[in-house]
């Protein structure tokens, strides 16, 4: 019944796509702008990299907009101008990111030797040459802190998320509000709070376990929010199936909902860990520092990667700064690994 067999030879096209030919005038204008920039810099007192960039932007955009005006009128010129500004704005934003990554890798790489992962700073000072010493104690300290903070915050966060998505009780609005409020607490406030609560008027001294407390406080809102989003993604049919089989709510949640959301919950935890792995300020109030690994988490100082970097920065010597960059590189690698794992877990489908 079809009458279009002949159309199999017709090919789909996109005539609205800008062809290379159409770009030629714009391209020549950019070259003209470059020439104009060069001339202006040559002939006027404006100098320096900023002058080049700014002038090229002004000429380039101006010429393009003028071309649009002549061909298609005022609104097209405004549109071209807006497009140029958007693209430039976007690029400006990404320069710092690129610079941050580049600087960290290039500067940190110098100090990146296998032995830094096996040595601590107990017999070296920050200004010593980089052939000695390492950051093993910082890595282990960070791992301790992450582990303790996770153990404390995970139950609270997941259970709060479950309350919000499964029970949806009368207090839900209020609790949502509280979680949002908590996400705004600055890390330094969390740090001095623990100090004020536990250390100021008691005989307790700072220790790893106390240092993990403000981190737990910072972690809870992140994990709760992500967990909530993930739990909401679990189709309600699954819950209904469980209840229809006669299971209690708690059994339904424990055996059906949570496993279904497992990947997402893992993502939530990873994101929470990424949030706190690089926190420096809280540690300054609740944890003494240390030059070696302190296996006693209940007493005595401990180092951590951000702490290590901070000390290097404060030290100010060349050796100190170099250690700081290397420490940041290691920390960044840790954060990137967490970031990538969160992506991987987040994209695995809910079974």
């Amino acid at each position: 019944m079809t009458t279009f067999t002949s159309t199999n030879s017709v090919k789909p096209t996109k005539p609205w796509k800008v062809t290379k030919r159409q770009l030629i005038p714009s391209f020549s204008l950019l070259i003209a702008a470059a020439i104009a920039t060069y001339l202006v810099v040559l002939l006027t007192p404006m100098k320096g990299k900023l002058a080049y960039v700014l002038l090229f932007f002004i000429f380039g955009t101006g010429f393009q907009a003028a071309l649009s005006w002549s061909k298609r009128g005022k609104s097209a010129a405004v549109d071209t101008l807006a497009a140029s500004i958007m693209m430039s704005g976007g690029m400006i934003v990404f320069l710092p990111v690129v610079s941050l990554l580049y600087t960290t890798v290039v500067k940190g790489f110098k100090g990146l030797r296998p032995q830094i992962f096996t040595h601590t700073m107990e017999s070296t000072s920050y200004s010593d040459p980089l052939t000695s010493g390492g950051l093993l104690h910082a890595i282990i300290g960070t791992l301790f802190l992450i582990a303790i903070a996770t153990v404390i915050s995970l139950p609270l966060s997941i259970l709060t998320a479950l309350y919000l998505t499964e029970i949806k009780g009368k207090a839900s609005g209020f609790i949502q509000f509280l979680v949002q409020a908590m996400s705004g607490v600055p890390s330094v406030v969390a740090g001095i709070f623990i100090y004020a609560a536990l250390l100021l008027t008691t005989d307790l001294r700072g220790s790893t376990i106390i240092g993990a407390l403000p981190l737990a406080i910072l972690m809870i809102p992140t994990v709760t929010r992500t967990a909530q989003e993930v739990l909401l993604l679990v189709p309600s049919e699954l819950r209904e199936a469980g209840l229809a089989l006669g299971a209690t709510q708690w059994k339904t949640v424990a055996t059906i909902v949570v496993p279904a959301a497992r990947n997402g919950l893992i993502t939530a935890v990873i994101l929470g860990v990424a949030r706190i792995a690089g926190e420096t300020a809280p540690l300054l109030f609740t944890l003494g520092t240390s030059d070696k690994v302190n296996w006693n988490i209940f007493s005595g100082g401990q180092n951590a990667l951000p702490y290590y970097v901070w000390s290097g920065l404060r030290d100010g010597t060349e050796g100190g700064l170099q250690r700081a960059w290397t420490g940041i590189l290691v920390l960044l690698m840790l954060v990137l690994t967490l970031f990538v794992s969160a992506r991987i877990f987040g994209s695995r489908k809910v079974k």
Partner: protein
Amino acid sequence: MTLTANSPKAIPEKRQITTKPRVSDKIFRGVLTAMSMSSLLILTLIGLFLSLRGFQAFQTQGIGFITKVDWTAGVDGSPDTFGLGAMIIGTLIISATALVVGVPLSVLTALFLTFYAPERLKRALVTLVDLMASFPSILFGLWGFIVLMPMAEYWAQLIHKYLGWIPVFGMPSPAYTRSPFIAGLVLAIMIIPIVTSVSREIFNQTPLDRIQAAYALGATRWAMIKAVVLPFGASGVVGGAMLGLGRALGETVAVYSVLNIVFKVNFQVLYGFGGNIASMIVGKWGEASLTESKALLAAGFVLFVMTLVVNLLANFIVRRTVKTGK
């Protein structure tokens, strides 16, 4: 099935449907509710401990704690003066700089990503922005100190040269290093991911039918954005900016690394000293006496209240935009 006029049937009462929950479910509910209340507990404790322990400072200084601009620990029996004023002003100035630089860039980026960027570039850039959001603040501090500082000094010189007649850009003497301006720039970069993310989300939700109506009338892309997207997303962007502000208010190590912390008022952003409350707490902590420590706790309480108010307002605005926009 005709209704007769003789015996109209009244609509029956609604039945009360009740279940007797199983014990395990009761426990389940109880545990979840209790655990959720932990957030309330923590927040209250924060407020409580900071204000109580720091109460002494409020007591002795009175309202001057906030308004006075002098912070000197008394030596050898002379009275202390703890005035947070300078640091409050510093906090506001640095945050304002961060907003002025960071919010327009974020909005431009969000518009670029939503309406201009080709698909593959968009995905790469969005990943980059999310990545930036997870960088630790100390990285920004270190980078700001080593990399950004020289550039920022150069720009500060330019700004002073051409705009120095504006009071806020004036300088009593050339000292461009480690000024609130640089701290503001670093903070601007730190808040860009948040503000861009929120703005992008809002712009993505612009109703498609209005966008199509504008295009069908012969609008260019920018004309459409101006007529449809910006009115729709304006309040959401404000909410996002406030979230960024909340972040900027409490930032510690990044500011401490690039700013020359001096506890005096400085309105001239290009001039090399200043401070914010967070970095002041960190700076003075090491050598603080007991009294001064309590005063620092009180300062922390003020910071807590500031960030709390800003954050709650921001969340309220963002959620309201998302709701009413639909």
